[in-house]
């Protein structure tokens, strides 16, 4: 069975959920080979084996993660040359897509981003135009390089052979030309990553102020959810821009999406309408968000959201 390479996203060996999803997807279409790059890569071996990796390529040199993207492209390109895999799967994150793009150019291969599924024959399913259109495509040249959105599949535990292969690579001159001098963390306390979260609670114009977002955060925290915001809310300075969900922000596809004070303009719908279950609270009964909602409440979010937070907290005991 041909190998399918999966680039693993991890923090010092702690594997991100999306990478386990990709391993599961890879095992469905071939022999899943994990590629782990950077310091702590060895720590990932146990988890990757548990989720079906037959082979684990480990490149733990710190130099590979101290420049922007280039070194990771070199590692993958070397493995492409040595093992001729059937495909390369990469998480559809901002950096994942950049790695895919450069790898495509370097290896003369076609690239498809933002897959939501991969079918037999490596046919890639995408959900485009904010989820209104489903597209099936395939790479026709070189090795298919496919980026897959988080939450596209459920990771399944299945013990793999987990054979560890150490990889070292000579970096190309341009791999190290953009040097990461410092990593600055300014995330808000311990919430799950927006793109990966199983539940997202978002606030919009109706939240009214930066202070108002405390109520969004409280509801999010009792659901162990990520916090999102509509463009109207980020444009008004209620919440930082990197939490924007929509056409020009992040695309999310959680199990549960709760929209508070969001009217549901196409700009926002484009980023969330493939969520499995949608709940909306809005004062305006005519708001387009209610066309998407599985459950909607027409009312004042300043009454409804705190009550919901309290109900959830008490029902959880």
């Amino acid at each position: 069975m041909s190998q399918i390479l999966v680039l693993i996203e991890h923090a010092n060996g702690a594997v991100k959920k999306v990478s386990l999803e990709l391993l599961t997807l890879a095992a469905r279409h071939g022999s899943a080979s994990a590629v782990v790059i950077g310091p702590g890569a060895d720590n990932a071996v146990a988890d990757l084996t548990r989720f079906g990796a037959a082979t684990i390529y480990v490149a733990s040199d710190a130099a590979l993660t101290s420049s922007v993207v280039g070194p990771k492209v070199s590692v993958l390109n070397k493995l492409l040359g040595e093992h001729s895999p059937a495909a390369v799967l990469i998480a559809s994150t901002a950096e994942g897509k950049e790695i895919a793009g450069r790898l495509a150019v370097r290896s003369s291969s076609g690239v498809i981003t933002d897959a939501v599924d991969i079918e037999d024959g490596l046919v890639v399913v995408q959900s485009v135009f904010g989820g209104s259109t489903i597209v099936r495509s395939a790479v026709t040249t070189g090795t298919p390089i496919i980026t897959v959105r988080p939450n596209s599949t459920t990771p399944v535990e299945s013990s793999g052979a987990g054979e560890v292969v150490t990889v070292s690579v000579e970096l190309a001159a341009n791999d190290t030309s953009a040097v990461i001098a410092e990593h600055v963390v300014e995330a808000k306390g311990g919430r799950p990553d927006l793109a990966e979260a199983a539940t997202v609670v978002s606030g919009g114009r109706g939240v009214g102020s930066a202070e108002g977002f405390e109520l969004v955060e409280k509801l999010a925290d009792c659901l162990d959810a990520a916090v999102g915001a509509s463009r109207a809310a980020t444009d008004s300075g209620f919440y930082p821009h990197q939490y924007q969900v929509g056409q020009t922000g992040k695309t999310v596809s959680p199990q549960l999406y709760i929209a508070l004070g969001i009217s549901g303009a196409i700009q926002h719908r484009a980023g969330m309408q493939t969520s499995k279950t949608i709940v909306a609270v809005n004062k305006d009964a005519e708001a387009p968000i209610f066309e998407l909602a599985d459950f909607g409440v027409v009312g004042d979010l300043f009454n409804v959201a705190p009550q919901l937070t309290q109900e959830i907290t008490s029902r959880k005991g």
Partner: protein
Amino acid sequence: MPLNIVVCVKQVPDSWAEKKLNPDDRTLDRASADPVLNELDEYGIEEALRLQEAHGGTVTILCMGPEKAGETIRKALSMGADQAVHVVDDALHGSDAVATSAALAAALKRVEFDLVILGSESTDARMSVVPAMLAERLSLPQMTFAKKVDADPDARTLTIHRQTDDGYDVVTSSLPAVVSVVEKINEPRYPSFKGIMAAKKKPVETLSLADLSLDPQTVGLAGAWSTVNAFEQRPPRQAGTVVTDDGDGGTKIADFLVTQKFL
């Protein structure tokens, strides 16, 4: 030292309109919505103009697109850019990101620049790969997803804050470099009346594939390295339950979450 900057821009269907695919060749139906300057590119133009104000030099707009994209180029010039290059050729229709980056790279090889600036993605394809591909093709530092850009043309160095999921990375490189900027790095200016009038007289060089010595077979639909097999409209979501809050709206949502096994 002055800083010569090229800003790549794209004409896209209005991001506030519904978009669809063309059934004949399964490319974007560009007639289905008003064509506009990709709004994320406005941040790139603004950043270039600010760097020009600080350091001097020229700002050149580079756009690949059909004849009609000339309107988008004029919009970019009306914001204050000095000149433009329009890569236009019927054979480019249906180009994928790989081919687009090849055509842009070929055009960039004809001009002297210190910085290439792009928006972080186009609002139509949303692949967000062209800036990285350009860095690869031109063998230049990839300085992408910048939320802050500091150039020192005398020292020939560049520092950016690269946006990450949990904050940002401080990234340094030499010049020239390829930069992409994120939304909200700045507040793009509106074209002034004077700017709009001046834009009409600014030079726009038109380049064909022959001018770029590119084989038409390597671009467009013919040269695409991936192909769209089929597409369909997603069935609309089934209408759910909408209730009016009578003081128990939060409780009702909690009840709903229980039925859906979220609680």
